[in-house]
C-alpha cells in the first residue's frame, strides 16, 4: 500500500520521542499491508468513524487519523494527534 502524509511524523516524534518507534513501525507495516488486510493487521488499534475516517491509536500516546482508498491501495495520513485516554486502552 502507498502511505502518504508521512511528512508530519518526524515532526511529531521529535517532540514526542516515545512515539518514534510506534510511528516508524506503523508506516513500515502499513506499506506492506494490502488494503484488504489493513483492518486485520491493526485490529486492536483501529476504529473507524461515521465518515469512514480511520483512527489508529498507537502505543506512545499518538493517534493517526487517515483515509483509505482501498481500490487504489492508498492510505492518506490526515493528522497526527495525542491519543485520547479513552482510546489508548483499545
Amino acid at each position: 500500500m502507498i502511505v502518504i502524509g508521512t511528512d508530519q511524523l518526524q515532526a511529531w516524534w521529535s517532540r514526542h520521542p516515545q512515539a518514534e518507534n510506534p510511528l516508524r513501525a506503523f508506516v513500515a507495516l502499513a506499506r506492506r499491508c494490502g488494503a484488504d488486510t489493513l483492518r486485520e493487521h491493526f485490529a486492536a488499534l483501529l476504529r473507524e468513524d461515521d465518515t469512514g475516517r480511520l483512527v489508529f491509536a498507537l502505543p506512545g500516546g499518538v493517534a493517526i487519523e487517515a483515509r483509505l482508498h482501498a481500490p487504489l491501495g492508498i492510505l492518506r495520513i490526515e493528522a497526527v494527534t495525542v491519543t485520547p485516554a479513552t482510546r489508548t486502552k483499545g
Partner: protein
Amino acid sequence: MTAPAAIKPIRTDAEHRAALAEIETLFDAAPGTEAADRLEVLTILVAAYEQKQHPIEAPDPVAVLDFAMRAQGRTQADLAALLGSRSRASEVLNRRRALTRDMIDKLATAWGVPADLLSAAYPVRAGMPGALKRGLAATAVVAVLGTAALAGTIGGMVWAYGDSLPSTAELADYVPADMRRYDESGRLAAYRRFVPLSAIPAHVVGAFLAAEDQDFYAHDGYDVWAMVRAAGQNLMHPGSKPAGASTITQQLAKNLLLPGKPPSFERKTQEVLLARRIEAALSKERILELYLNEIYFGGRAYGIAAAAEQYFHKRPADLTVAEAAYLAALPKAPNHYRIDVAENRDRAKTRRDWVLGRMADDGFITVSAATFARAEPLTSAVQRP
C-alpha cells in the same frame, strides 16, 4: 474550471502541499476514471517526495514485533505458543535473544509480520534482570501461600523457615574463591578457578539454560508450575528419585547459602525464599556467573573452568557445542554422568544428546548444529576405568 496541472515530479514543499490539496479533492474518485488515474499518479509522486525529504525507516525487528503484536491484540503468551517456549518469547521481546530464521518464518506465516522487517540485524543484550513475569510470580506466590493457608500450618512454617535464613546481601560483591584442596595423600581433591561470565561463550551459557532452567530470564527465582509438576511426578512415582524442579537461582541458593542441608520441605521452602531474595539483589548475569562458578561437576571440579579443565583440558572459551552440552548435563547428577568413569559413558551421551536437542529447541544452536554435535563421540581427556 481550471485544467489540472501537468504531472511532474514534486521538488518543493509548496508543490507537495499543492499535490496533497489536489489529492484531497480526488480522494473519492471511482476506480477506472481519469480522476482515479490522476489520484494514483499524484500519490506516487507525493510518496516519492516524502520518502526523499522525510524518510521513515522501519525500527529494529523487536520494535516491529512488539508493535505488530499490539496492533493485532496479541500477548506474550501468544508469542510463547507460536515460538514454542515462554523463555524464548521473553528473551526475544527483551532483546536477550536474536530472532532466528525459523522464528521469523513462523511470525510471517502465522501472523503476517513481514519477514524483511524482522530480518535486520540488531543488538542483543547480554541480559538484564527479567521482570516480565513479576505479576505472574506474585500471583503464584499468592497461590502458593493460599494453598499453604488452606493446609493449615504451612504458612507459619514458611515464616519460621524464612526467619532463620542467611543474608543474601554479601552476594553482591562475592567472588567464588579459587581453590585447590588436597587429600591426605597429597592428591588434588577439589579445584575451582573463577572465570567471569564475559569469558564464557554464549553457547556454553545456553547449554546450561537449556538443560537446567529454560525460563531463567522470565522467572523471579522459582517456577511454581515446575514445582507443582515435580510434586505431581513425585506423587505418581513415589519410589523413584524425587524430581526437584529447582531453577538456577534456587540451585545457587542451595549451594551457596544452604550447603550440606539434606533435602526436605524446609530446605525447599528456604530455597524459594532465598531465590527470591537473590533475584531482588543481583542481576540475572551475576546469578549466572555465580552459578556457573559454584556448581559441582563431579570428580574434583567445582565451577565451569575446573570442569572444562578436568574433562577436556580446555578453557571454557574453547569448549565445543558438544562439550558444552555435556558439561551442562552434569549438574543434575555429577557422579552419575562423569565420563571419566567408563560405566557412565552411554547414559552420559544420552543425556548430552538430550541437552543438544533442548539447545536447538530454544534457539541457542541450529538443528543442524545439534545433529553434527550428536555425531561427535563423547570422550574425556581424563579416562578412568
